[in-house]
């Protein structure tokens, strides 16, 4: 069984954090698998875990009445899924749905949250990294909103 340590340690998201932190993460990490069609989490569920996708594809969905859930983004290999565990009220805001068979590393967000409250330096480093992800998603979402490919502007 492969260890998760090199995967976590080498992932760009964790670069620059000290070894102690990496060990902490490894201690709170586990391999998970989802089959195509499984829901990883649903809107409203308590958010205590985040995921590092190793294989497959996950769709972030918005549930709308009279519609099947609408996919607003897909995430693939190497991407981080989930930030709602970091900020109160710690509930998922969207559905996450495996589009293909997906393997991921699940990381204990609840544990990390507590450590961040105790150690603000660690908290700042973690928040910086998630802020970057949120920024990228926001920019991409804005571009999507512009509907640049439509005929009428």
């Amino acid at each position, binding site marked *: 069984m492969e260890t998760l340590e090199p995967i976590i340690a080498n992932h760009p998201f964790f670069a620059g954090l000290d070894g102690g932190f990496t060990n902490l993460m490894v201690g709170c990490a586990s391999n998970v698998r989802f089959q195509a069609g499984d829901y990883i989490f649903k809107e409203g569920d308590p958010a205590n875990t985040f995921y590092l996708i190793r294989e497959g594809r996950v769709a972030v969905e918005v549930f709308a009445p009279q519609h*099947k859930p*609408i996919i607003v983004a897909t995430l693939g*290999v190497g991407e981080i899924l989930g930030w709602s565990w970091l900020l109160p009220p710690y509930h998922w805001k969207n559905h996450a749905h495996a589009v293909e068979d997906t393997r991921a590393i699940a990381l204990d967000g609840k544990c990390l949250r507590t450590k961040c409250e105790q150690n603000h330096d660690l908290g700042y480093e973690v928040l910086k990294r998630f802020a970057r992800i949120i920024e990228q998603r926001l920019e*991409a979402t804005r*571009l999507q909103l512009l509907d*640049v*490919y439509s*005929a009428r502007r």
Partner: protein
Amino acid sequence: MTMATTTTTDPMLPRPYLVRQVAKETPDIFTLTLEPENDPNGDMFLPGQFSMLWVFGVGELPISISGDPASPDRLVYTVRSVGQATHSLVSQRVGESVGVRGPFGAGWPAEVARNRDVIVVAGGIGLAPLRPLIYHVLGNRRDYKRLVVLYGARSPRELLYRKELASWARHHETQVLVTVDYGGLGWRGHVGVVTTLFKYARLQAPRSVAMICGPEIMMRFVARELEAQGLARDDIYLSMERNMKCGVGLCGHCQYEKHFVCKDGPVFRYEQVRSLLEKYEL
């Protein structure tokens, strides 16, 4: 910039071309295949060049050539029906004729990409002016390293050349990634803007040359992102669009600061237009 020699006849005179096929790509996009009435050899053109297409008595439009440069006996154009002129163009029936002037313009600099990775980034109908380049690279496979096609469209229904996209992906050292802004039912592929595909392309900056075509906003963000990934500004190319009446640099309409898009472009190096893309109402 690369330029083909224009025909020796008056560039303001349209030549009659027979409509051989009108294929529907999406609800409002059609691909026309034309054949010259009077010249079996056809016209040499370079990927990225355009023609001025004329419908008798209606009007004329600049349309990028979308066919295979190795088969100049046919001229292929993918046209979106958005107004009177485009509508009449896509409504032509097989056997009728359309006037063609050109080819005009500076095309994709294939020679700059020799022995390097060719990264093609297309948005919406922007894939049409890039298709001749893709054909050229696939037809001269050994002259180029990896070919990566990153294509974003509005929704699955609006994807162009679906069968070809699949067949291109089967070529040696060729990667084709497709994404849509709105997924819809049954779509199990990527959803998100085309910049979200970059991480899967495994770009190696110094050995890559990128060619981008799509709406101006999309090209601006893509070029910026490519630069952030380490590509040099001289290794990123965009195809610009402006109003054109003559296609030969005499009517003045297509000016983009000091450039004439019809003859200095439509393909430009990112270095040439980087500061211009940010200027509102230039």
